């Protein structure tokens, strides 16, 4: 039977300066989930993560991690969690391998075991050759990977990633995505916050959107994306493109001689358009979504919340 990896009930946070960052939020993340917690800057994502990981003290509410209440047995609850914070927060004067072994030690893992864990993670994340280098000499992408390795050194059941790929190039991001998918498939529950919405769309099964300290949406990624009524695509044609007739149901804008954008309205689908184009003898070479579907929904939701 699957446990809930995380259950948050009526969680509030009021900082010492009187600013309320969270308003009675409820959140549930199932075991094995790959969960996106999205929101604009200052929405309350990092506060929520801070409370889960004990870096921030909650004002009200309860947090359970694998059925362990953080108020009743914080050390046990924390043993389940691995955190990749937003900013680099390792000792930049320590060598890479030592950072991992020390972190394992804080979780009560003996050095002979943590050495093996460190070997596996450093190999897996392409840092083995840098194991004796002090961490300040690593590139930005390597530092990001080191943060992930450090969070995984004690084999946590719940991995929390607070913008883990910020500033990383696409190659590093893809390597991280592959690895995160792999560990999720192996049973690790993952909570991800990111500003790269295509990253969340690609990786996550469920999603919550938070803004101004309140949860605006919390559902499966599939259900959330299905709320998108109109989708905009860019299509690339073979040869020069001339505007065809009978496209009243589609809003078409020519970009150049070989490409155009089209908005598919609710009730139609891309096949309807392709049928018409085929009849008009317009051959499509390739096509893509103009913007991330998730991005579109996210912006809409946050803008509506601002208006309200």
């Amino acid at each position, binding site marked *: 039977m699957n446990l809930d990896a995380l259950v948050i009930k009526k969680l509030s946070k009021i*900082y*010492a300066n009187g600013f309320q960052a969270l308003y009675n939020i409820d959140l549930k993340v199932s075991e094995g989930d790959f969960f996106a917690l999205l929101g604009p800057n200052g929405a309350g994502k990092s506060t929520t993560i*801070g409370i889960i*990981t*004990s*870096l*921030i*003290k909650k004002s009200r509410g309860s947090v359970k991690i694998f059925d362990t209440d953080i108020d009743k047995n*914080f*050390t*046990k609850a*924390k*043993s389940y*969690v691995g*955190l990749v*914070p937003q*900013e680099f*927060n*390792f*000792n*930049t*004067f320590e060598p890479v391998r*030592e950072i991992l072994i*020390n*972190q394992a*030690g*804080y*979780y*009560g*893992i*003996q050095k002979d075991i943590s050495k093996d864990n460190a070997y596996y993670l450093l190999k897996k994340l392409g840092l083995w050759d840098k194991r004796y280098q002090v961490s300040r000499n690593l590139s930005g992408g390597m530092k990001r990977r080191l943060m992930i390795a*450090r969070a995984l050194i004690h084999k946590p059941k719940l991995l929390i990633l607070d913008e883990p790929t910020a500033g990383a190039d696409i190659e590093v991001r893809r390597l991280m995505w592959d690895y995160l998918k792999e560990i999720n498939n192996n049973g690790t529950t993952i909570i991800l916050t990111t500003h790269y919405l295509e990253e969340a769309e690609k990786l996550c099964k469920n999603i919550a959107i938070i803004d101004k300290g309140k949860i605006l949406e919390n559902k499966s990624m599939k259900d959330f994306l299905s709320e998108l009524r109109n989708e905009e695509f860019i299509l690339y044609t073979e040869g020069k493109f001339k505007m065809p007739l009978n496209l009243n149901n589609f809003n078409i804008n020519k970009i150049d001689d070989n490409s155009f954008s089209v908005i598919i309205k609710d009730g139609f689908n891309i096949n309807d358009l392709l049928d018409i184009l085929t009849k008009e003898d317009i051959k499509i070479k390739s096509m893509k979504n103009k913007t991330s579907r998730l991005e579109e929904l996210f912006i809409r939701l946050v803008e509506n919340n601002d208006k309200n």
Partner: protein
Amino acid sequence: MIKINNSQFVAYITIVRKEVLRFSRIWKQTIIPPVITNVLYFIIFGNLIGARIGKIDSYTYTDFIFPGLLLMSVITHSYTNTVSSLYISKYHRHIEELLVSPIENYTILLGFITGGVIRGIAVGIVVILVAQLFVTFTMQYILLTVIIIFLSSTLFSMCGFLNGLFANDWDDINVIPTFIMTPLTYLGGIFFSINMLPDVWREIALFNPILYLINGLRFGMLGVSDIDISIAIVIIVFFNVLMLYLCLHYLKLGKGLRT
């Protein structure tokens, strides 16, 4: 009742190892300076000025001031180690490595105290070795000497820890050593016996806790003291217990660590 399990012990050893490696890596900043400072004290105060002062309690002036100088080195470095290590880890945010881990507060505190004690005692040993060139080394009561050095070191490691918790910027970690510790240490009888002071100043000096540490150690090493040794031990233990309570209390509150 605190139950220490194996995980907490491993975490404790990890913190201690990390602390020792930290100050060992920068040994030129942490171990060598007290050697130079003490050599200067021995030459200037001990030999040049001390020769004109003559004997105190039947010891040469250099021998008389040695326990105080030794204690000053031990407590200063115990204090500095914990305050700087804790504040730097707060400043660079790698304290979060500890805070997110399942480590009990007492383990964190014990790890930092041990790091401070090891550095304080390491510096003390180096000072003792250097002092062989200038003083006639005596130790009347070995066990008492060891206990006084150890408890003084734990006390000032905890003071440094508390300062580190409260410190919000670099100035804050220098205020206590500069404006409180140094004056109290110099006025605590390193260079003089309080019996040499006028009555009023003698009474005031008795409110200085460092006086009891210095005289405790002087009694352990030389067998002479301005105050009753049992009172000195009670006061040292009392301040250790008080600081232990304050450190654990503020750690539990998350002072300076958790918002």
